[in-house]
């Protein structure tokens, strides 16, 4: 059974009339012109640049406009190891981005600390402070993987609703668009993670 909207669409299409919903055209426009924030942290940044350069050409997906200012960006690609010294700046940049905004955690380090997880100065994943939409594993992920992650994010954006109970985060005030910036303290970041974003996996100890 097709919805009335789909029936209308099928009826009108042979006559050269296209109908769409506000939601669809809004999401279509947004997903095809994501502007990433131009910043790289470590090795993954080189692969991010390679993705933007000649062979892989991220412009095919409409995301080639790397903006140096967070005020103009929609997408934050956390590319590389986030150290404890760098984490407050990354969260601050996220806070300065206008809604709707998305985060891609690129590479093992941004997801979980990666090979440097044991290091005393390495943050064990940026998802401790800001919500992450797409995680791309790899060390570093290939440019194709970054493009795949971008496509996944586009699919996510295309599914977003504007006005209903499952409305997107950007349209409601239920979820904050800014998160507290951790303090780079004497021993560790304070707090070690934001409990409203990050839920550590439960540890089951045997009987």
């Amino acid at each position, binding site marked *: 059974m097709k919805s009335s909207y789909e029936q209308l669409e099928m009826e009108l299409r042979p006559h050269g009339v296209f109908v769409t919903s506000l939601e669809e055209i809004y999401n279509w426009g947004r997903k095809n012109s994501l502007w990433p924030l131009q910043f790289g942290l*470590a090795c993954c940044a*080189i692969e991010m640049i*390679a993705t933007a*350069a000649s062979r892989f050409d991220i412009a095919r997906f409409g995301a080639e406009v790397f903006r140096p200012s967070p005020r103009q960006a929609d997408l934050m690609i956390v590319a590389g*190891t986030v150290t404890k010294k760098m984490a407050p700046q990354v969260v601050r940049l996220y806070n300065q981005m206008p809604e709707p905004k998305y985060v891609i955690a690129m590479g093992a380090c941004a997801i979980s600390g990666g090979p440097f997880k*044991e290091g*005393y*100065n390495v943050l064990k994943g940026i998802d401790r402070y800001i919500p992450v939409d797409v995680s791309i594993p790899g060390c570093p992920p290939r440019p194709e993987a970054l493009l795949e992650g971008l496509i996944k994010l586009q699919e996510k954006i295309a599914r977003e609703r504007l006005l209903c109970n499952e409305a997107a985060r950007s349209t409601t005030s239920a979820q904050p668009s800014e998160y507290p910036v951790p303090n780079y303290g004497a021993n560790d970041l304070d707090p070690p993670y934001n409990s409203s974003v990050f839920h550590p996996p439960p540890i089951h100890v045997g009987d």
Partner: protein
Amino acid sequence: MNVTLEGETVVALKPVFGYLHRNHEKLAEGMSYLGSMPYTDRLDYICPLTNNWAYALAVEKLAGIEVPERAEYLRVILAELTRIQNHAAFLGFVLGDMGAWGTALMYAFRERERILDFFEELTGARMMVNFMRFGGCRWDTPAGWLEEVRKFVKGVPNFLDEMEKLLVENEILLARLVGVAPLSGKRAIEGGLSGPPLRASGVDYDIRKVDAYGIYSRFRFRIPRGEYGDCYDRFMIRIHEARESVEILKQALDEIPEGPVLNPKIKQRGFRPPPGEVYARLEAPKGELGFHIISDGTDRPYRYRVRPPSLINLTLLEEMCIGAKIADVMVILGSIDIVLGEVDR
């Protein structure tokens, strides 16, 4: 960097480090000798193969390991390919920083991707290659690989001509580079600089010639030198160095013998060198990369220290920037060619 300005002129500058301090040295002291090899890839992540080689060189010197002939040649080929791709990426990045956003980078990365294809074919990874082993290389080249490299190397001079034309014939670029932040050879030596920034100041010092590590004494190549030590010299020296790399590559590809690539007597896992202390260095694309290892005879290094070229080349940054305009700071910093993974480790 903390920069103090008077109008647009820099009066003080202080680099602030530590934003990418990933505890490389501390982690290496807690793991086996072979376990550190993948981490060295991530020091200077644009040229992992020379980092691998520097570490392998240090451990080989410590334990007195012999390297088979074919592996030595393979190492030279890989190191020189790395040098070409590093210098290409350098030109792309810095021209991008100067405002030629995109164009130069596209040309540079076109060439870089071709070299990364070779790395991928040989090692299985584009960037994090983890290819050198104590006493050789991990495995031999796939069939036809050397032929493909030979074909590619013939085309590199065309790319370098193209890049050089872009640098020499662009009036805006010359205005931004010529005479900016000149550095005398005497100061460069006093500052401990190494690699291209040192040679751009006219000092004839290349560890490939001075130490002749590996088999570099067998190749004929020249050491390009700058005259004034300004940004223009620091740019052009990269082009000239890449040309010399092509010469070395041609010789190495012609002379590479058949044979094993790994010394079979060395037990890679659970490797235990005799107690001792060693410092080994080589000419990485960015300068002198050295590893200082103290062994106490166990399977883990007692002390592991990296001498990164990027960090030590930054010593004279303030001196070079004082008196320059704020817009030139980016160019001066870029012309030193640093990688933060190596500066902070």
